[in-house]
């Protein structure tokens, strides 16, 4: 078999959780809300998806439980930032710290237990095609759903009326409110959607990538997803491209370790984090890029009487 095929295949698997989390956050940020709690919601998603799958034996139940758990946490975030108008940065940090603590607490007895990995689907004929079959038709269902999610988010933000409303609210909530758009409801829905996606991203880690629960297993992937939204200048297509690039970087280090590159493994493991910084520098270098693309009200509270 061509050695590139498994490399590309594992890149796709590495990129998938980033796609879910980053696309969710893209929608949240386009509505003007900055949720820094992705890491915490991913961990909660990972542990609850794992627990639900173990209890029920069904991956579907696992992913649904993960999405609900992510939504439950994001609801807390929504209540604090949208109703009580707390500082979004601080609340997001609180959500991450809380998620790390809660997931470790809940998952204390689950560490080290096995779970059946979500298997790749088998499409008659297509999977059997040499090379192409392995490259395109040999993934688990969540990979294909991530493509569906991308198309849906793309359509929603650029073509749908609700997407236009959401973007208007992200740019200027006061103007949107003045012409009768439901600012809080829209932002709530966006935050819940982001929570569900982060939960699913977490469950993908504990059910597909490494089918087990390990404390703090997201290892910064939630923060990388946040960086991807900036990297993609809040545009779904670029966010997805960024996720695949990062998946590639993560896999490159594993392959480099496998090939016995004379570099300590720790330095190879730094690559995704270092790449995040470099990429951010490249994108943010020109202040205009951020100014023109970042939703204008991002991170600001909205109070209708103000």
């Amino acid at each position: 078999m061509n050695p590139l095929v498994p490399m590309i295949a594992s890149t796709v698997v590495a990129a998938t959780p980033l796609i879910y989390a980053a696309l969710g956050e893209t929608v949240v940020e386009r509505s003007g809300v900055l949720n820094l709690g992705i890491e915490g919601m991913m961990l909660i998603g990972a542990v609850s998806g794992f627990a639900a799958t173990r209890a029920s034996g069904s991956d579907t139940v696992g992913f649904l439980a993960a999405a609900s758990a992510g939504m439950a946490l994001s609801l807390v975030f929504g209540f604090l930032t949208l109703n009580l108008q707390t500082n979004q940065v601080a609340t997001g940090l609180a959500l991450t710290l809380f998620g790390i603590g809660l997931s470790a607490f809940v998952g204390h007895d689950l560490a080290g237990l096995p779970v059946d990995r979500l298997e790749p689907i088998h499409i008659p004929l297509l999977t059997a095609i040499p090379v192409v079959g392995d490259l395109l038709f040999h993934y688990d269902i969540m990979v294909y759903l991530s493509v569906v999610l991308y198309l849906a988010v793309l359509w929603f933000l650029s073509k749908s009326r609700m997407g236009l409303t959401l973007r208007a609210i992200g740019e200027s909530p006061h103007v949107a409110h003045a012409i009768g758009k439901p600012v809080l409801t829209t932002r709530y829905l966006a935050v819940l959607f982001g929570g569900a996606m982060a939960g699913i991203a977490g469950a993908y880690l504990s059910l597909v990538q490494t089918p087990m629960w390990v404390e703090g297993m997201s290892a910064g992937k939630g923060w990388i997803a946040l960086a991807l939204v900036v990297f993609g200048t809040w545009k779904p297509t670029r966010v997805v491209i960024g996720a695949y690039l990062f998946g590639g970087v993560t896999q490159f280090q594993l392959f480099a370790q496998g090939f016995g590159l004379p570099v300590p493994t720790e330095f190879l493991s730094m690559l995704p984090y270092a790449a995040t910084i470099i990429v951010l520098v490249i994108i943010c270098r020109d202040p205009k890029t951020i100014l023109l693309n970042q939703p204008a009200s991002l991170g600001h509270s909205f109070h209708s009487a103000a």
Partner: protein
Amino acid sequence: MFRLERRATPSSTMSIVSPLLAASAMLITGFLLFSFLGKDPIEAFYLFFIKPLSSTYGIGELLLKTTPLLLCGLGLALGFRANVWNIGAEGQLTMGAIAGGGVALWFGESDSSLAMPLMLLAGILGGMAWAAIPAFLRTRFNTNEILVTLMLVYISQLVLSWLVHGPWRDPQGQNYPQSQGFGDAETMDVLISGTRVTWGIVYALGLAIIAWVFSQKTFAGFRMQVAGLAPAAAAYAGFSEKRNIWIALLLCGGAAGLAGICEVAGPIGRMQQEISPGYGFAAIIVAWIGRLHPIGVIFGALLMSLLYLGGESAQMGMGLPSAITGLFQGLLLFYLLAADLFITFRLKRVVAAPENKTPQMATKLEKAA
């Protein structure tokens, strides 16, 4: 019915009452949680909050854990006040430990009286250098410091891991990923005999006073406060945003670096893989509970330190996972942010409209309400 009404001026009483409210809410949640888990809540509370403090050794442990939390919390509070979101104190702490620990290992078993001052200095400079990266990237390339400081946490931990697995590994250490122990001159003196608390707590308390003077009594501190409270006013007054960012990050990096070297040269006594159970992150909560005020941060650090000790004590006494500490920390910050609402808003009782009004009048009143 009650309704929220914006206060004319933020309430300074509420900003002190709010952490107490949050702590009470956390205790109530803890009570419910312990009951739900089938543990006796009174016994759990005793293990969590009383037992750790019931001996001199316990008080020493409290102060020992307060040291890094206070040092990092002071630096973070300074930055948060100026709208500089450094959340990577954990990484700056790690780098301080690496730089200072490197000096300690270089001195080896030497009795030189220069060793400790140089270690402390190296620790401070190590943390500063690590914080200089996000400062440079933010001021020169407009790069968000939240993400950069956080990524640098992971990188610093990998650097430490490489050092203790590779160049610094003790040849006689049975392959454990740790260095050989520091010499006597490279270990900090114990402050109170019978405990493990070192001079670090004195440095930290001293720094709290310096930080108070800096933020309340100097022009540089004033500029940073204005930049945080009213960025537009700061820009109009010609206060340099870049200078604020550099000051905030370098000071926090230095304080966190000092925390790091105080840990490895104090209770740990060698370089090893794990040097902090998330002090740098918990310090974010410390800064918030302390109202971003240097003196308040002391109380925040004491409370957070007690949560760490209580978690350990509850783990040993009741078999509760020590992760419960992280859970309580997160809850506390949530409750605090919610309670802070009452600093700028107050609950106002809304008197129902009298019923003998005409229907139109009543609807108008309802609308107005």
